């Protein structure tokens, strides 16, 4: 089974071109941190309440990315809230996307191609080698949004991460997203981690707007 981090990155790969697509760069960076926390929560390594994050078990998961983050959290007990940890990992500039891509390539789901643009600029592409995996993630996302039932835990997490990444539009039409806006917000609000990811993005947006206002 893929991790939440891998599923979100896989969703971001354009099946036609092999390029990574995202309409919200910072949103994606924050959401990938959220994906790691969801992976750790699913493995019962951490737990959260409305504000705090608690480490339950520091034994290794076998996944290098998750183990590195978990060890880092265990070493910094002074950080106790979900928001503090989201900011800490975001500002640490960890290459979560690159690690997930490498793992997807190892699993044979993506390929890695390098080429030159104008004979000078390196261009990387990640063509889909196993399109079924990406289609399944897309289908789960669509079903979770378009149905009225209670989705599986992982699918609730998937919706709540795809939304701040701006990835819903690759699984659903604009009309479907507009018609199901309340449902998307309901699912995105269920989890503390996604609420805090959304708050972190809003905080960054506000900071950037203030900075731009000063420049102008």
């Amino acid at each position, binding site marked *: 089974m893929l991790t939440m981090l891998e599923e979100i990155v896989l969703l971001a790969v354009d099946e036609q071109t092999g390029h990574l697509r995202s309409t919200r760069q910072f949103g994606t960076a924050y959401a990938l941190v959220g994906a790691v926390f969801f992976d750790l929560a699913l493995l*019962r390594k951490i*737990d*959260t*309440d*409305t504000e705090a994050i*608690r480490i339950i078990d520091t034994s290794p998961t076998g996944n290098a990315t998750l183990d590195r983050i978990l060890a880092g959290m265990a070493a910094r007990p002074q950080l106790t809230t979900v928001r503090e940890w989201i900011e800490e990992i975001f500002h640490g500039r960890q290459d979560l996307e690159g690690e997930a891509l490498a793992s997807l390539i190892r699993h044979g789901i993506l390929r890695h191609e390098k080429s030159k643009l104008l004979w000078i600029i390196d261009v990387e592409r990640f063509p889909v080698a196993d399109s079924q995996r990406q289609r399944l993630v897309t289908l789960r996302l669509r079903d979770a949004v378009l149905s009225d039932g209670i989705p*599986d835990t992982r699918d609730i997490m998937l919706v709540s991460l795809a939304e701040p990444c701006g990835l819903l539009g690759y699984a659903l039409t604009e009309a479907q997203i507009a018609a199901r806006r309340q449902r998307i917000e*309901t699912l995105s609000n269920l989890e*503390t981690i996604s609420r805090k990811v959304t708050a972190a993005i809003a905080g960054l947006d506000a900071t950037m707007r203030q900075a731009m206002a000063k420049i102008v």
Partner: protein
Amino acid sequence: MIEVTQQTRSGWCVVEVRGRADAEAADRLEETLRAALEGHPKVAADFSALDYISSAGIRAVLQAARAAEGRGAEFAVCSLSAPVRKVFDTSGLHHVLKIHGELPC
């Protein structure tokens, strides 16, 4: 750690949950509620003595509610304690769960 008791009243299986529904207790909570749903068409989870619920606990309740949907069973979460109500309100769980102020029986 949670303590669970179960009794049948007026056609409802009432599962009373006491203590802390956190990551350590989440599997037991989900298993208990699912087992109740397998044997009864109407299950009420009484959370009046539940002191704390974490995200893992909420996921357990949501997955039990999902199982109830799949079986066509009725599942109600009832009598939330004040700290648990606060968590449910923050998460907007009333949009996806049937939450009753009091037990339906």
